């Protein structure tokens, strides 16, 4: 989108591209699919991230259901060993890299600029590129299913089992290269959001007035910025070994398989905080809104988030307690791992204290947020039992670990994401999700998840290892703790869970058909993203807000009664909006759509495809990338004035444009 002319904000200016960059003219901002494919608008990209993530969530979920079907009874026959191994590898890869991370990226893309009062991100085209790279990387990863079998080494792909002899199909190649592409996407996204937060905040919004969601996203982006290159190295080593005969994990040449484990988990542990912190951010927004109180101990929550991010770098070897690190390393990493429970505890405590003394409104969003507090704690506490290294040697690689990480991932990250859906749906789509169905959605999910993952504690402590395509009655035991019963319960639970998630999808469909529009400020919210229309205008805010408080929007609506210390409403959201419209900025200058991000992103899977099949294809991919980079470099982010039909003389447009070029 190019220029929005005041006072007619709904009619976008039409761009007539006259200048050719490289070889293509700039796309015309139209309606229809082109307005999505070539968009650089952070909100559209946010929605596309969300839709992509949801799509992969269902794929990963169906893979999970197949896993549970196979394990429901002894000697399962639904999948064979080979297929089962592909299934859990791709289930985890899909859920982690193609569901939770992109979903968080979607939320971040959509709401960070809105929360800090910006009109877009720092690098809009890079943003678009990141999305397309992620989508193409995800598709590329899953292509392997149709080309001889997907990756089968488990999501942490330990060497040397990932080597060419032990995993001869191309699955691991697709996996390594696909993650490499997704990694590029995350890295560009991280740089983009960091710069956006550091550099594009509205006047008056100091770091300590930033909404907590934005804070947590910022911490996450720093984690990604520094963790992605580590997995990049690991994946390169693996690809070089598989495709070019390097020896990195070849024990016969003297290689040490622990090299891979270290590199993977140096990335992998920060990665798990990448998965959880966005959800921590979401519930830290939701809980105050529905408690009608500010977040308790905001600075503590901010610093604990940063502390989790920082300490998270020093704990990676807790995934290797049984690998044979030697007692000194084990002791050190055991200690640092326990230390992480402290800042995480700070969050749990502060959320509870946020609700304490509040006026609690149990919307679906709130229910999911509260669900997160309790269920994440369950997962976190089992995490602490792993941190005690000697007991971890009994637990590691059993279902007890599977229970741990599904409680933190599903009970934590996913519940947080669902809380965000219900909370922000009216903001993004201008319609309220149905609360009644939401309630069903919540309860079925919570019951389902406890039924699915709760029994896994028992299974694990009873000695059932993970990643077994079959279990046998011979080792199932008898009595109350017999594995057969609890495996069956877990499998039943997973279908309850699926029905719960189905409720959400139904809710979305129903909501889409419901003509009723959402009110402007349905939750009586607190932060800046609510200080605009639903959905927000292309340029987000008519006036770039000036910030005075944490929760500035709330404080514009309410004032404290000096005597009773209760809050009195002084203005409504509608009044605030009306005032904004009256004072709307003239000549808002938005970045223009571009072909190059998607073209550049498309070149990447072509290159990697060629690495597996024929280097000639790689050359073609390289040409595409160079061609796109060239066009990108020559194209300015915003179309020049001559491209605008509505460029009437005397509007001052010329000045705006050249200032920014």
């Amino acid at each position, binding site marked *: 989108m190019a220029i929005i002319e005041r006072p007619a904000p709904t009619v976008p200016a039409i761009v007539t591209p006259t200048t050719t960059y490289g070889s293509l003219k700039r796309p015309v901002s139209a309606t229809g699919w082109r307005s999505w494919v070539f968009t650089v608008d952070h909100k559209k990209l946010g929605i596309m991230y969300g839709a992509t993530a949801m799509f992969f969530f269902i794929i990963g979920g169906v893979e999970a259901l197949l896993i549970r079907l196979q394990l429901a009874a002894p000697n399962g026959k639904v999948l064979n060993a080979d297929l089962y191994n592909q299934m859990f590898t791709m289930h985890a890869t899909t859920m982690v890299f193609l569901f939770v991370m992109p979903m968080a990226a979607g939320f971040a893309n959509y709401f960070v600029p809105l929360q800090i009062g910006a009109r877009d991100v720092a690098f809009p085209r890079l943003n678009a590129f990141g999305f397309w790279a992620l989508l193409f990387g995800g598709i590329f990863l899953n292509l392997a299913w149709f080309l001889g079998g997907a990756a089968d080494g488990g999501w942490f792909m330990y060497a040397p089992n990932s080597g060419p002899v032990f995993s001869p199909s191309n699955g691991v190649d697709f996996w390594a290269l696909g993650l490499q592409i997704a990694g590029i996407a995350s890295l560009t996204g991280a740089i983009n959001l960091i710069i956006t937060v550091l550099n594009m905040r509205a006047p008056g919004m100091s770091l300590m007035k930033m909404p907590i969601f934005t804070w947590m996203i910022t911490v996450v982006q720093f984690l990604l910025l520094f963790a992605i290159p580590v997995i990049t190295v690991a994946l390169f080593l693996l690809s070089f070994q598989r495709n070019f005969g390097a020896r990195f994990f070849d024990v016969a040449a003297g290689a040490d*398989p622990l090299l891979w484990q270290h590199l993977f988990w140096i990335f992998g542990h920060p990665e798990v905080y990448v998965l959880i912190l966005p959800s921590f951010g979401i519930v830290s927004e939701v809980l105050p809104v529905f408690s009608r109180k500010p977040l308790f101990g905001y600075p503590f929550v901010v610093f604990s988030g940063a502390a989790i991010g920082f300490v998270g770098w020093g704990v990676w070897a807790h995934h290797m307690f049984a690998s044979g690190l030697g007692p000194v390393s084990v002791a050190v990493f055991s200690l640092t791992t326990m230390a992480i429970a402290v800042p995480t505890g700070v969050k749990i405590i502060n959320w509870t204290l946020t609700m304490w003394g509040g006026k609690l409104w149990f919307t679906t969003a709130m229910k999911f947020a509260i669900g997160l507090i309790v269920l994440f704690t369950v997962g976190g506490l089992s995490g602490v039992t792993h941190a005690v290294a000697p007991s971890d040697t*009994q637990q590691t690689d059993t279902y007890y670990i599977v229970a741990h990480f599904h409680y933190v991932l599903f009970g934590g990250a996913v519940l947080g994401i669902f809380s965000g859906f219900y909370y922000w749906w009216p903001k993004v789509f201008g319609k309220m999700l149905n609360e009644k169905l939401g309630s069903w959605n919540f309860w079925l999910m919570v019951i389902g998840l406890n039924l699915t993952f709760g029994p896994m504690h028992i299974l694990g402590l009873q000695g059932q290892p993970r990643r077994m395509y079959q279990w046998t009655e011979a080792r199932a035991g008898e009595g109350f703790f017999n594995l057969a019963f609890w495996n069956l319960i877990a499998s039943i639970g997973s279908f309850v869970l699926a029905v719960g998630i189905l409720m959400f999808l139904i809710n979305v469909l129903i909501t889409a058909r419901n003509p009723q529009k959402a009110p402007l400020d349905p939750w009586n919210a607190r932060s800046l993203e609510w200080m605009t229309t639903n959905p927000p205008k292309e340029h987000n805010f008519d006036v770039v807000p000036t910030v005075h408080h944490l929760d500035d929007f709330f404080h514009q609506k309410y004032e404290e009664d000096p005597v009773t210390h209760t809050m009195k409403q002084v203005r409504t959201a509608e009044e605030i909006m009306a005032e904004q419209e009256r004072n709307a900025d003239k000549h808002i200058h938005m970045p223009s759509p571009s072909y190059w991000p998607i073209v550049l992103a498309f070149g990447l899977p072509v290159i990697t495809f060629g690495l597996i099949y024929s280097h000639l294809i790689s050359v073609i991919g390289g040409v595409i990338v160079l061609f796109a980079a060239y066009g990108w470099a020559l194209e300015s982010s915003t179309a020049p004035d001559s491209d605008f039909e509505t460029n009437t003389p005397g509007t001052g447009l010329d000045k705006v444009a050249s200032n920014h070029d």
Partner: protein
Amino acid sequence: MSRRQFDIRLSVTIASVRIVLRRVFRPLIIVGGISALSASCATNAPQDTWQPKGPNSKLIDDLQQPVFAVAGIIGLIVAVAVIYTMLKYRDRGQPIPEQTHGKPALEITLTIIPALILAVVSVFTFGAIFKLAKTDDTEMIINVTGQQWWWEYDYPVQNDFGITQPIISSGQLVMPVGTKVLLRETSRDVIHSYWIPALNGKRDAVPGRIQTLRLEADEPGIYAGQCSEFCGLSHANMRMEAVALSKEDFAKWVANQQAPYVAPAKDTLAKQGEEVFLNQCVRCHQVNGLTRADGTPAIAAPDENVWSGAAPNLSHLMSRNTFAGAMFNLLSKQCRDEVWNASSDVVGAKYLAGVTEQCLNQKDLRAWLRNAPEVKPMYANPADLAVSDGKYRGMPYLALSEDDINKLVAYLITLK
């Protein structure tokens, strides 16, 4: 608030807490409560991690039980606090509350308490880590090698235990009771992990490294275990058992393992089986003392045929109860149960009886010989062996006739 009101409020609160607990948190409670109970419960799965049977696992258990308890209590506190808050502060039309931003003193206190708890836990953790890493009090060494998808045990010469020549075995680790055994683990292909829950935690068997694991059993018995690092197709079928024998029984076992080869009598089915074995099997499997017709010793060369460079040594196959990575029993179900459920004073004798003809699990053994990759997933399809230089991973399909299988079974049963 009057006393009565308060009482009513309290009972209502408690009742609602109960309802919520019952509805939502029942699974949690079940898990938590049951976990606590299970320490005392018997009849669990054979790999239960809460039933230590040796000093190393007891050390772990003594450490972890209080940790589980602390974690459970903290979890309960959080759950109760959240539910209580939910009930107490639900919207009853009260005014929008004061916008309190926090109470630093309270926050700091609530930060320090968990830190202190964890400091205490870590002290005990440290002690246990170093105790479990000790190697200087070892009494007996057994080398353990993992490969896809079974374990090989190699007892180096240790005269104290009557081991005067190396013993090579697979599937079941036989060890003397009350002895500090040190496993020296490695792997021939990918990473595996050795784990007998009743005796100790896991230790990965990493190719290119030799790593140690302490094992010691208090009582004679059979303890189940399972490879617990993902190692490819048949990871699920890579099991093991540790057999702890009294010192006398162990000595008998050692003597048997070192007993010379007894060739089957002429003109028996078994003798014909030996012939088939010499034709088909010795290229991979070693039977110590077995000679060819011309009197030369038959030396297996598995590294030419198997990627990991080994196949189980079958010299005393019938002295063990299981085969193919403990995936199958060599004993029929009934005989097996008799050994497994034997009390600790007779289990040794029962175990040393080995596999008799009546007790042999013919069905699984025959199925194995008929087509091993069909009953245990292995990379043994000749069409797919290019990547492994034509070598199998696991035992291939050998296209044996039923006749040959009969002969082989008759022969194998003689390998006491």
